[in-house]
């Protein structure tokens, strides 16, 4: 029954398209006309400012998780860097100590940038 209805709708749509083809001027093929309109619309779509839909539907738990990971990752990288520098230069405790604090600072920087919004990561503009 649904199938019959949709087939009927398709038939009426095709008959109306033949009607419009007869009445309008321009390219006779409706597909060509559609392509023309699409190619006109495409650049405009690219230029329009972003709609709000790009922000992810992040929950507060996910957000907290993200901040925590930013803090942790920078701290880990700082510690690893300090440890490596100690191994290369033989400055046993000092590289680790200094880079611990640098890592912590970088973690807070990253957390701050993350808190400014996922859509604007990197540096504040």
């Amino acid at each position: 029954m649904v199938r019959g209805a949709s087939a009927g709708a398709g038939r009426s749509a095709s008959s109306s398209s033949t009607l419009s083809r007869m009445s309008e001027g321009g390219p006779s093929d409706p597909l060509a006309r559609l392509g023309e309109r699409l190619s006109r619309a495409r650049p405009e779509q690219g230029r329009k400012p972003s709609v709000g839909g790009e922000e992810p539907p992040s929950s507060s738990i996910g957000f907290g998780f993200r901040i925590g990971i930013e803090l942790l990752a920078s701290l880990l990288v700082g510690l690893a860097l300090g440890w490596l520098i100690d191994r290369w230069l033989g400055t046993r405790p000092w590289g680790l100590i200094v880079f611990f604090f640098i890592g912590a600072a970088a973690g807070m920087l990253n957390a701050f940038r993350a808190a400014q919004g996922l859509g604007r990561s990197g540096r504040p503009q």
Partner: protein
Amino acid sequence: MAGPKSPLEQFTIERLIPLHLGSVDVSYTNSALLMTVAVVLITLLLVGATRRASLVPGRLQSVAELSYEFIAGMVQENIGHEGIEFFPLVFSIFMFVLFGNMLGLIPFGYTFTSQIIVTFALSIFVFALVTLVAFIRHGIHFFSFFFPPGAPVFMAPILVPIEIVSYLSRPVSLSIRLFANMMAGHTMMAVFAGFTITLGVFGFFPIGVNVALYGLEVIVTALQAYVFTILTCLYLRDAIHLH
């Protein structure tokens, strides 16, 4: 880890086809199998959808077109017009991570994105690529990225190391985020599934929780694939536009 079935047991790597290349273990594991499945499924989906492309898309073609439009919009919006040359890369990353996450939700499947080495390999690849692109585009000027514009020069000894560590932490945070989300979700489901047996008659309650968790996990899989992809885009934008 007590008991015969640990909730972490689902993450064990099994060698399906043991292979050794010199002293390196290159066995074909269950993780590798699921990666192959993901790649094959993605290829089948996209090839199948575009082979019989019609003006009014069918179901399969709609899925392919939707994912294409979604990623194309994301690239356009976050990187800009010149970012479209990175579209194949970004699209591949998105589909691979999404399918990896989703395949883990199928019973008896395996989540390869719950292995940190997999996510780290993905993110270190993105990181290396982004750094390379930045070097190619800007040459030596790339190092100005590590000094915030407008900051007093005498702050450089403090700011530059902080910025470098912050930059180097990108692949780490990118990989930990994906891996931790996947692993936490799957562990949680396994823990609740374990409660089902121990609670006996009241086992229906953990089952109910697991049904809800499963729904949540479906969201998380898509969301984490999205987050991984959009961060890739943002890093690429940083590399192209620098400041």
